[in-house]
């Protein structure tokens, strides 16, 4: 009896701490500073999870990076798009800060004409469907997860 109680209590404290840190450190989309095509610091204050990032990469509902990019690491997934360059070895081509800038707002790196969406930006007044208004495509945590995943894509 006593054991169960203690465990429950500990878990509660633990959760409380995690949420508190995440809230304090998370940078909102409108506050992200892109300097020289880089965003230096993690959007959440902590590193992402590459396993989660791999999920967002292929998810049709979230990142859907695979819609436009080939990726040998996900060769088991059907239908890789070829709108953008394959992302094999992308970690060798870009620093973490550069990858973050590309993900946050691709236009800031590739120019205003790019087809690649900004994933951590908020657009106003351009017929954004109501359920998506005021929201970026990915959360700060998801962006960091994807970055952590991209960092694993190195040429052997």
């Amino acid at each position, binding site marked *: 009896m006593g054991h169960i109680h203690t465990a429950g209590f500990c878990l509660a404290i633990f959760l409380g701490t995690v949420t508190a840190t995440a809230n304090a450190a998370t940078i909102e989309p409108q506050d992200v500073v892109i300097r020289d095509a880089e965003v230096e610091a993690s959007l959440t204050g902590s590193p992402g999870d590459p396993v989660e990032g791999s999920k967002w990469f292929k998810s*049709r509902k979230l990142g*859907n990076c*695979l*819609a*436009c990019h080939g990726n040998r690491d996900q060769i088991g997934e*059907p*239908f*890789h*798009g*070829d*709108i953008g360059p394959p992302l094999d070895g992308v970690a060798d081509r870009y620093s973490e800060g550069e990858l973050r800038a590309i993900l946050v707002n691709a236009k800031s790196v590739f120019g205003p004409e790019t*087809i690649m*969406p*900004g994933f951590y*930006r908020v*657009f106003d007044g*351009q*017929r*954004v*469907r*109501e359920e*998506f208004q005021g*929201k970026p*495509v990915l959360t700060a945590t998801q962006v960091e997860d994807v970055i952590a995943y991209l960092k694993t894509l190195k040429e052997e």
Partner: protein
Amino acid sequence: MMVKRTKIAVLSAAAAGLVMSGYAFALPEGVDTVQVTATAKDHPLDEIYSGWHFRTPETQALQQDDFENPGFLWVEQGAELWETVDGSEQKSCASCHEDAADTMATAGAQMPKWNEALGKPVNLEQQINLCRSERMGAKPWKWESSELLSMTAFVRNQSRGTPVEVQIGGPMTPWFEKGKDLYNTRVGQLDLACVNCHQGYYGQSIRADRLSQGQSNGFPTYRLKWQKIGSLHRRFKGCMDQVRAEPYKVGSDEFLALELYVNWRGQGLPVEAPAVRQ
């Protein structure tokens, strides 16, 4: 009214000022081409391709055999409706327009057209409904209703092979400009415009879909995904949904303007309705 079906549709355009050229791969005998060279001044594309060009050989073949093409179910229903008396005037389409093969041989390729009485352009669906309400004393059909889709498919099919040609001068100009503007304006959470996908990347794949130029000459189109025929405006709506934008309404002035502009971008392509798409 009998619907004439052919095994291999002969798609050929010989419009003045259009240079025809063939495909790089072999087409079945009798099929000419569904690619034309744009010669209009300020046309954003060099070569204009029908969406047919980008589909798999299986889907292409399905479209080209009128006996296999599922879109013909709607064409058949349209043929019946053509001769069906309806409304307070006790008339059918045939009462006034007689043999559709003669009277509708070009109309389907030339919409939207300017309507003086309304002071705006009307597309094929709207013209059909105008004839119903103004000339037959019948209730207009709802957008995407089986009746309106069938009649649109039937009339457009009468114009099959006729090169698309729309008027953009005079009072049509502001509508054309509006359509062009909509085509080039980024919308939705993904912040993309029609031009980004259909001009920049046709021939390339976005996940499982090979991008076409987003041409309109095959509409209404039977989509395997929909398991039915659908209007051009429904397709516009689908594309806006994809980028997480709030779509305009089917039949709205915005989509009408967009239709005019998209048709102009495909000027010279022969009408293919009913096309088959993935």
